[in-house]
């Protein structure tokens, strides 16, 4: 559906701020976000996990109330779910006890649409989305791709003006996902979809460039819109087109760009939220860290282009970025403008044997990961050299949510076990210094 000249504004988000925890005093997820969706466009919200993009989508859908700010739908403030939008879920969210047809009719039934019309509209949507013949099947009988088609049919059948999609293709295999993307774009171009605009949440840069007219890039922790990029390439878009590659590279650069001032303070992790002991760490394994350092050291300058690296390793941004940034935190690598560069220490690590690697890793942990240093210090100071995990998880929860605190502690435990800095007894949930 090409954009009409007098495009009307469908939706607006004004200064949305979202904080979790009691009375919105917890960590910030979204901060000062402004979004406008016009008629006739496909917009992507691109960001990594922790950028609050899914929260933003739910605020727009009326499923979540922002801590402050508001969403406005065609001039009316959003207070709860409303008929103008319909959502496609990452996990499909199909009711396993309803058939394809019954799942599709769910929204219509909720609105008490008469049975005859319900059936007519449902079979239209089912045909359109390529599910003809599967009406009486249960979701468990379908493949992942077919299930998500049901998800699309269920959303389209209510004739929403704005279709909301929450990472709709990320639970599908590569081939299926690509087919579904092209099918959807074809239907959109041919004007066959009973909708006026699409808003999609994704962490997949290429997917965003392939499908959208406009991309909004969200930063992480807290989520802020850091860039807006218009994609003017004509459909169908070709991933090998140099202009396409250039767009992808540009976005990679923006997503790894550091704001000035990040670098100066040695206590911050740069890309990780929080400072000092309260820094939230990603669950990255030491195998992944070692693997990436080895891969980088294979090239003569110890440097690589992140998009190319991601393609080579078959990683998505959400897989690659946390590893790269952990290396950066540990001063084993530098990440900037879409490139990653091994430091001297990183190169030394890659070239050492296991014993030396452990020693080097331990030094960097104590020097650059404040939480690891704190645990080590507490254990050193105590006469019995033991400390309960709760001692640290409680401290972490002052800075972050329980889930993040758990992930952070887990990450540090895994890293320190590798470095043989200290030991952790899972049954007793206690840290102890390794017997010398």
């Amino acid at each position, binding site marked *: 559906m090409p954009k009409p000249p007098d495009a009307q504004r469908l939706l607006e988000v004004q200064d949305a701020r979202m904080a979790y925890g009691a*009375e919105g005093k917890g960590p910030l997820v979204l901060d000062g976000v402004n979004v406008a969706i016009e008629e006739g466009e496909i917009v992507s919200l691109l960001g990594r996990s922790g950028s609050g993009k899914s929260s933003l989508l*739910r605020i727009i*859908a*009326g*499923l979540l109330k922002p801590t402050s700010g508001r969403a406005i739908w065609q001039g009316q403030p959003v207070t709860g*779910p*409303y*008929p103008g*939008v*319909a*959502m496609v*879920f*990452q*996990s*499909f*969210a*199909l*009711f*396993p*006890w*309803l058939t394809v047809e019954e799942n599709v009719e*769910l*929204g219509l*039934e*909720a*609105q*008490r649409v008469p049975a005859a019309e319900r059936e007519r509209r449902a079979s239209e949507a089912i045909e359109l989305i390529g599910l003809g013949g599967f009406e009486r099947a*249960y*979701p*468990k*009988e379908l493949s992942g791709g077919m*299930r998500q088609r049901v998800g699309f049919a*269920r959303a389209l059948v*209510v004739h929403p003006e704005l279709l909301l999609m929450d990472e709709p293709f990320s639970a599908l295999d590569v081939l299926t996902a690509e087919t579904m993307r092209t099918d959807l774009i074809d239907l959109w171009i041919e004007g066959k979809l009973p909708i006026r605009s699409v808003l999609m949440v994704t962490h997949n840069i290429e997917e965003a460039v392939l499908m959208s007219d406009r991309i909004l890039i969200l930063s992480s922790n807290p989520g802020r819109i850091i860039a807006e990029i218009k994609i003017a390439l004509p459909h169908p878009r070709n991933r090998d087109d140099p202009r396409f590659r250039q767009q992808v590279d540009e976005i990679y650069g923006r997503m790894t760009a550091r704001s000035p001032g990040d670098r100066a303070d040695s206590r911050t992790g740069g890309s990780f939220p929080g400072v000092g002991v309260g820094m939230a760490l990603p669950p990255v394994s030491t195998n992944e860290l070692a693997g990436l350092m080895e891969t980088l050291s294979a090239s003569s300058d110890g440097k690589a282009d992140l998009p190319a690296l991601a393609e080579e390793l078959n990683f998505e941004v959400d897989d690659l970025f946390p590893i790269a940034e952990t290396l950066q935190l540990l001063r084993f690598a530098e990440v900037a403008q879409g490139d990653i560069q091994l430091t001297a220490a990183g190169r030394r690590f890659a070239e050492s044997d296991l014993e030396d690697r452990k020693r080097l890793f331990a030094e960097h942990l104590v020097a650059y990961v404040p939480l690891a240093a704190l645990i080590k210090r507490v254990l050193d100071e105590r006469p019995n050299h033991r400390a309960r995990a709760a001692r640290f998880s409680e401290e972490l929860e002052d800075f972050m949510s329980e889930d993040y605190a758990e992930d952070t502690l887990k990450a540090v435990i895994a890293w320190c076990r590798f470095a043989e800095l200290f030991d952790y007894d899972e*049954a007793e949930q206690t840290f102890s210094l390794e017997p010398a």
Partner: protein
Amino acid sequence: MSEPVLRRAHPALRAPFNIWDLVALALIVGVFIVISHGARETVAPLKSLGLTPISLDPWRLPEYALRTSMRMIAAMAASLAFALGYATLAAKSRHAELVLVPLLDILQSVPVLGFLSFTVTGFMALAPGNVLGVEFASIFAVFTAQAWNMAFSFYQSLKTLPADLDEAARAFGLTPWQKFWRLEAPYGAPALIWNMMMSMAGGWFFVTASEALTVGNTSVTLPGVGAYIAAANEKQDFAGVAWAILAMAVTIVIFDQLVFRPLVAWAEKFHMELTASSDPPQSWMLDMLRRTRLMARVGRPLGTAARWVASLRLAGGPLLRPPALSRRGERTIDIVWLAAVIGLAALAGEQIFGFVSKELSWADLVHAVALACLTLIRVVVLIGLAALVWTPVGVWIGLRPKWAERVQPVAQFLAAFPVNLLYGAVVSVIVAFHLSPDVFLSPLMVLGTQWYILFNVVAGASAYPTDLKQAAASFGVKGWLWWRHVMGPGILPYFVTGALTASGGAWNAAIVSEVASWGAHHLRAAGLGAYIADATAAGDYPRIVLGVAVMSMFVVALNRTVWRPLYRLAERRYRFA
């Protein structure tokens, strides 16, 4: 069919322990006292109702079995309605949850027959001079054996609704009423039905116990299999007992085949897994119903009607959909609510204190606790023995799928078996050989409940991952090492679930099994069960209250100090992800 045993872990293992448990305990005991006060006033004129005496003619048994079954069905319907309502309220209202959940936890630790002692007189007072009151009491006894478990199960389901389905339901604009029928009820159905089936076993036990009952000077006999058993016991009629066993067996099998198998097979479609189960439960009855044209003709309009009702845009009541309040308003309501609950609990506490100080002395409490310790020893020893016997047997069976398939229904059937059917045999042996009733009446306590250990262990062993079994075999792991590192940890979560259920059941059964009568022989073992049974027979309400309260506290304490930590450990360490 083997899997769900564990997934629906016993509810006693889940609730948090806090101050609210005390509040709940005070409220429940307080209510008992109030009821017993009222009961004493009204009970006097209700001497043995001129009921037709129970005939021992076996040809009357089908009719008796039917009467007993009707009571079961009525109780099931009541439990279902209660579970849906109570759980929904507890899950949707934060204020209600604070009180309702600990209340439920304590309620399910109260021995079922304890409820019966209180309620029978109250129900009789509701319909004076009429059998109806007694019928209600009997139905209520079965209700108390099922309702708490079912409510807990549905509450757990509501608290673990898949977030994405919940969002989808809201995003597509379903009202709370529509959401209940489209999402919440279907999601909770498999666990609810499974729980209902499991508590049926207890139900049969209690329905027979409640049909022939004496509370003080009120004797109650309801036509039914239970009354028939009581009559046969009194007349020392072995043939009668044999007929009753047959009638009971046939009834249980009919219920299993015509009600529960179809229900479980039907509820399979509500399971959350998006992959089709390789071995879904089957029911010939359900297949038949689905195939017959008549059913299709009757069923379709019913289905359409149900769908119509489910899609009504009823808004939730004020309780389910609280009006938007300011933070301050919410806090005020919190405080008012808290004050009300604590006030009520204090009132109940005062009531208890007044009652206890008037009617009972410290010596009574010490006496009851001492007797509880005796019963505790019995429970511990017997569950230990049962575990020693049935764990190896269960593992042996569980590792042989063909056997497991056949044993599961038999064990469930045995668990439903009313213990009073065996009084004749046991009492005869004890009397003939001059044995001590203190020791030899004890096995009656676990007669019914030991099977829970068996079928849970069978389920655990059947679910044991094949690759681990093969790994152990290929490394030559055998004997004690195999039990300690291979099979033991693998079945621990299942075993704990089974043993917990068995121990709870044993406490319950103490009330009917520490006292046994066969004709003129009345045997009595020292214990809290006998204490409650005696107090009930004598209509001594203060001592019933005391006995039931002490027993409840023992059960709660045992759950909290032994079973819950064990279960947590098993869940955390020995669960196959």
